[in-house]
């Protein structure tokens, strides 16, 4: 999966969870700023597993990976390349 494709699919997933327009989301934006809260985080982790076929380990659920759209896209790319 290309970086561009990951970004597009991730934006769509996050927009759906936070009830936002895809066009309103930028790659540098913090997830919290977009409106992802603790409940949204559960939906997001489940969504990542379905949308990208990756398994999000408990220890990965932290501010390093889930800081913003860019850090999360990078994580998806790394996990996708491993599997």
């Amino acid at each position, binding site marked *: 999966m290309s970086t561009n494709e990951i970004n597009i699919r991730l934006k769509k997933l996050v927009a759906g969870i936070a009830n*936002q327009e895809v066009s309103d989301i930028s790659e540098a934006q913090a997830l919290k700023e977009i409106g992802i809260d603790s409940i949204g985080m559960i939906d997001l982790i489940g969504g990542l597993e379905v949308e990208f076929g990756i398994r999000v380990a*408990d220890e990965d659920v932290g*501010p390093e990976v889930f800081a913003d759209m860019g850090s999360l896209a990078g994580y998806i790319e790394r996990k996708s390349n491993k599997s």
Partner: protein
Amino acid sequence: MIYTIGEIITQTSLKTPDKTALIFDGQRYSYRELERKINQCARKLIGQGIAKGEKAALFITNAPEFIIAYFALIRIGAVVVPVNTQLKLRELQYILENCQTRMLLTNLATDSFINQTLPHLTTVQQAIVLTTDPKIAGDGRIQFWNLQTEEGANDHPGLSLIDADEAVIIYTSGTTGQPKGVVLTHLNILSNVNSIVHYLRLTEDDNTLIFLPLFYSYALSQMLTVLRAGGTITLMRDFLFPQRALSLVGQEGVTGFGGVPTTYNILLRIGNLPTYNLSSLRYILNAGGPIYPAIIERLLSAFPGVEIINNYGCSEVAPRATYLDFKYAREKIGSIGKAIPNVQVRVLNPDGREVVPGETGEIVIRGSNVMKGYLNNPVETGRVLQKDGLHTGDMATIDEDGFIFIKGRKSDIINCRGEKISAKEVEAVLISHPAVYEAAVVGMPDEILGEAVKAYIVSKDGQLVNKEELLIFCARNLASYKVPKVVEFVAQLPKTASGKVQKHLLK
């Protein structure tokens, strides 16, 4: 004996000045340091001309700045209005106009807040942005204060306050669709703090982890009770990463924390829960909404040896009214227990008599913790504050041993993840969408949220509206927790002959 909230920290700072009062992001603040920062902030606020009895809004996310600003305002006799930082402009405008605050303190030093939201807050004459990094320019009303490095006079402002003075106004969802300002005095809050310290047996050895937002009356109560006991607060920005909360328990020697049912639904999903060091943990509190007995059972298994304590209250009682003593946790599972010390809690039937076991009635509360009233709202105040006490609108039964069990609410309020949501407020936003003819909003059981918002929509003739578009519209006008989780389009709503929507048929 202390009579006003501001004395809480002063007292401990004199007794054990070097004791850690607050831990945030690995940084520690002693009572002496916190006292000094509070006095500095109080002096600066006096310099801004804020007078006793004047209202000031706190629009601050979890950070030391919240605690410093809260106590500084309280200490100079101002009335603190903590505001939910998730609110959207329309909601924020209503609250600030309702309580007529001219001063707002915030730590949201973002371009969107300063340049898009603040210009629309017309009642605010002074906005104080608490930040260590003042990069964003704003209009002339804005000042940037760095409470971490400020120097200046730090002696106690020494104003004369009494326990009957107003201290805090908490906004809570109202059945009419607009939030109501619950006015609490120093006495209301302190008497509740003292009762909680007593029944939780809090001491200076306690370390309370707070991850709920401090603008909630529940989290404010956690903050005040542990400080009253001379203990330590371990503060988190939020509960976005629950694993970090568990790590902090071991790292900082946390002895207790409080959450809402949703907190526990989330924690119990963490696969490697048993690998965390939770040996310092003594108690876990639930409040903010009814918790399913099955969740309590799972908590008892997941946290062996930890006291799981179910509580009940509301902002109007500053905020605690009952608790279930841990010794009855299994025997009376699902109960909210009995009254906390110094509070009377009765379940009354419509005739005003106490119910017998099995009969349902309304929870009515008396005590020095019961609010003064709703701000500028004598009608609602008179409706709930009656001769026999505060009528909560919560329906309950008692068992033969006097333990109370919640059965539901009299009013059209949805309890989603500990937040009370007015169905009418959500309906009003839905109906303002150009393609919506009618809307009815109800609470539906939800495994994680407790109750989720469900909307039934009748669209205008010939107009198409899709669910996503409607939810985006809601998200622009309502805080995220109020946005419906489920939307169902129907041809018509069930109604009585007089045209009233029969919501019981929609649940």
